């Protein structure tokens, strides 16, 4: 019985694929709020995956519009796209995605490079959102970050987080971090730094209480990141970061996003829908960080050995 239905599903999707390949070109309409290198890379990644999956040349109509940074134009682009009746709308960044979602309840919409899709009301839930919308979130993947710290320190018991409680973004990262850490049996110790001049003291508060320091993508902490690094060296507590840029400034290691790869992960979702899956049944994907930066010099100065496995995986090693 079950086997039968799977067989049917496969047959149906093959049929759909064949008909879409032969009958007419698939039409993928993409839009972004503004043109900048990261968002352009997302678009190029999507297109590459489509080409690799056999949607290329005459089989694919791929359009791209930029709203020039103006939400009013984003709204106009959304209406135009809906009127053109593409097979899929791909909307890059929050305002473009919101405009597309409010313009169509029927055409599948795949969003990308949106940090908080539930907060932006694009989908009601991340698991099987149920509507015509799904996509990829580039929220900081704290689980992956904790796993990386654990690779360096297999006996990791506690992590210290200096952050500014006034930054909404940091608060949500710390909340997510606490949830992920308790699953892994790790304790999170918070330390508040409302101003960049408080960062040094806030970090010192953590010394002796934690095995490692983890800095979220917090503007206050990042702007005074050197003070965190200094405390890390003085107290031999390794400092990890949520963004790869900070590794060059002295963090031991970080996993981050490569936006071209975000585009490729979005492209995978687009291809699944083109092959017949319903967007409402596809979970919103938390993007996997694929670029790993390691700073071996800082690892040595903070007294932590770099595991061979991490070094082999690293996309950039700073010596």
């Amino acid at each position, binding site marked *: 019985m079950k086997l039968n239905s799977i067989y049917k599903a496969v047959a149906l999707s093959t049929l759909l694929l064949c008909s879409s390949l032969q009958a007419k070109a698939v039409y993928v309409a993409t839009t972004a709020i503004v043109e900048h290198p990261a968002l352009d890379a997302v678009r190029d990644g999507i297109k590459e995956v489509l080409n690799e999956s056999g949607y290329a040349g005459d089989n694919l109509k791929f359009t791209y519009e930029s709203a020039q940074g103006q939400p*009013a134009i984003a*709204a106009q682009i959304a209406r135009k796209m809906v009127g*053109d009746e593409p097979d899929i709308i791909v909307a890059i960044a929050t305002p473009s995605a*919101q*405009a597309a979602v409010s313009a169509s309840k029927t055409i599948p919409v795949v969003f990308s490079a949106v940090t908080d899709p539930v907060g932006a009301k694009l989908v009601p839930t991340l698991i099987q959102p149920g509507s015509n919308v799904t996509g990829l979130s580039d929220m900081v993947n704290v689980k992956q970050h904790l796993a990386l710290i654990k690779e360096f320190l297999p006996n990791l018991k506690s992590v210290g987080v200096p952050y500014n409680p006034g930054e909404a973004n940091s608060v949500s990262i710390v909340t997510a971090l606490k949830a992920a850490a308790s699953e892994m049996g790790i304790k999170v110790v918070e330390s508040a730094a409302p101003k960049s001049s408080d960062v040094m003291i806030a970090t010192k508060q953590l010394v002796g209480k934690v095995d490692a320091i983890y800095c979220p993508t917090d503007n206050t902490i990042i702007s005074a990141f050197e003070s965190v690094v200094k405390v890390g060296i003085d107290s031999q507590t390794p400092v990890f970061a949520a963004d790869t840029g900070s590794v060059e400034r002295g963090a031991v290691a970080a996993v981050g996003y490569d936006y071209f790869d975000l585009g490729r992960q979005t492209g995978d979702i687009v291809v699944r829908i083109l092959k017949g899956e319903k967007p409402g049944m596809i979970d919103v994907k938390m993007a996997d960080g694929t670029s790993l930066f390691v700073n071996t010099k800082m690892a040595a100065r903070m007294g932590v050995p770099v595991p061979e496995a991490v070094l082999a995986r690293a996309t950039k090693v700073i010596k």
Partner: protein
Amino acid sequence: MSVFAFLGTLEIGFIYGLVAIGVYITFRILDFPDLTVDGSFTLGAAVTATLIVAGQNVFFATLLGTLAASCAGLLTAWLNLRFNILHLLASILTMTALYTINLRVMGKPNVALIMEPTILTPFEGMFGLPDMVMKVIFVAIFAVIAALLVAWFLNTQYGLAMRAVGSNKRMAQANGIVVTEKVYIGLALSNGLVGLAGALFAQTNGFADSTMGIGTIVVGLAAVIIGQSLFASRSMWVIALSCIVGSILYRVAVSLALNADFLGFKASDLNLITAVLVALALVFPKLRSEWKAKQAEGNNG
């Protein structure tokens, strides 16, 4: 252009028609170049969206959004009149301050309304009209009523006094008109209309965003000038409605530019194409009248 795209063009055109009327009041009636609108558009949207998410009545939220934007206009007028700060600079100061205030009001850079009730919810499915058509009719009614009310107001004794202040401040004062009061009322009215436009935009498009006001003044001014160059008239009724027509034509230009990719244009060329189309719309009536004048000359000679 598809029907759907055309309806979208009309909808956004009508909403920005309110901005155009507001800009007309400051720039043309009061002769007060007011850049506050870049901030008050977002303020109207931010206040309305935040209140709706907090569970307030949608009409009440829209009203408060409009009033908040009016207050922004009053602030600009106060800086100018009370402290003699140059009008342009006073409005830039308010606009700059509003960026922070908008972020504070929303508590984050973007508030979503996609799944919230909006001012449009009670009218959904009315007379069996599709949502897209209903949205256009709704904003059209708002824009036209606003235009007619503004035209009526400017034709009253009070409105005439306000127009006198704009055309000759000293003369107006000599005739016993209280100049400062007219400027306060004019800026509050203008920014209120712009804030209302922001509130409507947030509700028809499902979000308020801290960047949504950027360039509002440019769009509003372009709409005013397009409208006036097409309908040269001194009647307030015609002028107010021509602001809306100008705004729609501006959106048509954007829409045409969006459809220009078959000519080999790229997505990043959008602003240039829009500017060229608007320039053509402005130049054409002038060229035509020059050509006519030349012909008349030829006939006489």
